[in-house]
């Protein structure tokens, strides 16, 4: 088996109408069309999904795990950002 230099793609699948696309994994493919084909074989073999997106992994920008505190910690102390001060009438049911 030879080394391959095919680009990496991230795969997103929407499992039902009205839902949102969710990241399911990644794969190698020569181009976008073939990436869709491979995604169908690798991630949609059991009928899951109504739509597939593939995105070149190189086009994704990810946060640095080391920046976690910087990005998310401040939110923890700002309780007014959480809607916990509202009284929900019983009749409303699920919110």
């Amino acid at each position, binding site marked *: 088996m030879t080394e391959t230099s095919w680009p990496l793609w991230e795969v997103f699948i929407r499992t039902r109408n009205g839902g949102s696309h969710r990241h399911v994994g990644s794969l190698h493919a020569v181009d976008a069309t*073939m990436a869709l084909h491979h995604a169908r*074989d690798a991630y949609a073999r059991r009928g899951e999904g109504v739509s597939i997106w593939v995105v070149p992994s190189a086009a994704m920008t990810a946060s640095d795990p080391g920046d976690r505190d910087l990005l998310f910690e401040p939110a923890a102390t700002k309780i007014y950002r959480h809607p916990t001060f509202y009284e929900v009438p019983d009749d409303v049911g699920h919110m």
Partner: protein
Amino acid sequence: MRGSGSALFIYLLRLGDNALMLGHRLSEWCGRAPVLEEDLALANMGLDLLGQARSFLTYAGEVEGKGRDEDALAYLREAGEYRNILLVELPGGDFAFTMVRQLLYGSLIQRLFEALASSRDSTLAGIAAKGANELAYHVRHAAEWTIRLGDGTAESHRRTQLALDELWPYTGEMLETDEVEHALIEQHIAVDPSRLRQAWERALAEVTEEATLQLPRQTWMQSGGRVGRHSEHLGHILSELQYLQRTYPGAKW
């Protein structure tokens, strides 16, 4: 119109054996494909074909009425009793060969199945309708690869053109009809493949043009598989395919 000598039985064997042998050829790629993604794709397509073979052979067994099931028909016949075309028993070859064969076979049989979906035989129609969807995907996959390989590097172009030239003389058998089909066509059970030829050739021409490949001109066509005259390659397939059932008769998972 039932029984082992019936036209329907032989017609079902022809359809089922094609799928069985081509599915087996694809399964030979398992673990050997150029990349993992393609390994999955080839195995998927092979399993689709195996599923079609099971449906056709199960129904063939019922039509024959001698109590033979799909396993008896798949594993316990002699080479001369198989009715597949020669195209599907040819040894694997390289990746280009595999994709070009899938394209040549799939694009005609998909059309055949689409037409068979309105067969007067409702069981046959049901199997064909399901298979047509599967083959549509095989064709798209094979066409995409044929285009990329044909219009790729000098080496991939050379190999793909070579595959097309080697395989072309084996395509004529898909368009043949004999008294088996004639009887069934008259009853609106089978479909005359020759009326699919134009659309098939046009679809092929579109792919080969984009792939910068030359579709071979009319040539002498190989024939014989449909009546049980096979190449030596079928014997090699059977020695592997039938090994377990021959060695341990009745073995079950």
